[in-house]
């Protein structure tokens, strides 16, 4: 029962960590506006955290520049399982206006799993909230899958 409660709370308190991989700052401002009183994502339990160790949802914006690529990969490696990656805006999807530049190394799918992707330059705050809500639902599924895998593992060993 305790495990069920944990599964349930997984989607109720997703903490967001934001990685800026060379974004033009447009998407970053929209992400912050989601947390302001007007859209108030905190009512679903979303919180911006400052450390990747405490993140449940990692939001990546920007077209993955060469400079930020290694740092992004290193940061993603520090996030404890289970976690979701959300790609924010058109940049991490396709490169957007920066496509073809020598300085970028996208898309994001090349480097990590992407659970939810929001399009738009910049996406609307409503769309970002919808994406985050979807990501938190995926988070619960992941946790359940993790638990079942653990169980199967234990049974196999015993």
């Amino acid at each position, binding site marked *: 029962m305790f495990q069920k*409660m*944990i*599964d*349930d*709370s*997984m989607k*109720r*308190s*997703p903490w967001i960590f934001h990685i800026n991989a060379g974004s033009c700052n447009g998407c970053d401002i929209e992400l912050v506006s989601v947390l302001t*009183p007007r859209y*108030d994502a*905190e*009512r*679903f*339990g979303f919180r*911006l*955290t*400052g*450390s990747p*160790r*405490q993140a*449940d949802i990692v939001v990546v914006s920007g077209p993955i520049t060469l400079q930020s690529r290694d740092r992004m990969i290193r940061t993603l490696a*520090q996030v*404890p*399982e*289970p976690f979701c990656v959300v790609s924010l805006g058109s940049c991490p999807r396709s490169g957007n206006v920066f496509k073809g530049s020598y300085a970028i190394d996208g898309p994001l799918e090349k480097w990590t799993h992407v659970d939810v992707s929001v399009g738009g330059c910049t996406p609307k705050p409503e769309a970002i909230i919808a994406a985050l809500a979807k990501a938190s639902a995926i988070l619960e599924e992941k*946790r359940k899958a993790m638990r079942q895998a653990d169980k199967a593992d234990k049974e196999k060993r015993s």
Partner: protein
Amino acid sequence: MSFDILWFAFHILIFPGLLFIVVMGVLLMGINNKMVARMQNRVGPPILQPWYDFLKCCGKETIIPRRAQKFVFIGAPILGFAVLITAALFIPFGGSSVLSSTGDIVVILYLLTFCSVMSIVGAAASGSPYAGVGLSREMVAMIAYELPFVLVLLAVGKLAGSDSAQGVTFSLATITEWQTAHLPVICHISMIPAAIAMLFVIPCEIGMHPFDIAEAETELCEGTLTEYSGAPLGVYKLTHCVKVYVMTALFTALFMGGITTGMVVVDVLIKILVCLVVTFLSMTLPHAVCARFKVEQVFKFYWTFVSALALISLVLVWIGL
């Protein structure tokens, strides 16, 4: 005999022990968050949000950094939580407290400091430079609030001890008795500055928003908590909630204790109401109104304004007003 032990265990584990303390802490914290949100014209997170946060943290993977001191890193949050629960057992809530001695106040002061020191120790063991900056700030905050805190406790002790032979009392039971015999401490005009000082000490002791210089998430990547993940982080968050209860309950015991109607249930309800009011005044208002202070601003504020308020009360009590 065995019934006595059972009764004692019930006191420690259920009421007014572990379960009650945790539930109160989570509720007070949740209601505080909700009130802040309403003051900022938001809907706000659900009241049980701190509890969800704790559960979620329990369900995450716990990463121990390679450079961390494993034993201390895991032990510090657990020890801090245990110490805080022990401190809470000394505070009378409704009826009498579970544990009591002649030096309650000194013990509580030590245990609260120990709890803060545990967060410093945990941060130091994590081996992260952000945590290093965070812990130095935490120390500054501790030095800042400790002075007015001790002054307030001395003032209350002197007032309540005026009947006894020693002159100053450090026992919460004596303070409660004194308040039943006379009026609650806050009704004495000389004690109002001390009460205000205590209201300022509470958020800094807990590390609530305008005074959370050690956990500044925007500048320091969560400061002392940078490297924590999973269950230890959850325990830290729960400790945070419990601290809200401990500090508000301490305020009620010091300044508004001794109001009894004879029925324990009614007493407890009154105490909970007072705790809510204290939470609103000391935590919600500054949180909703102020942005985070700088380190030196916090230090200056506590050592001048708040200490002066506490000192005024102490002097007034000492000359017998």
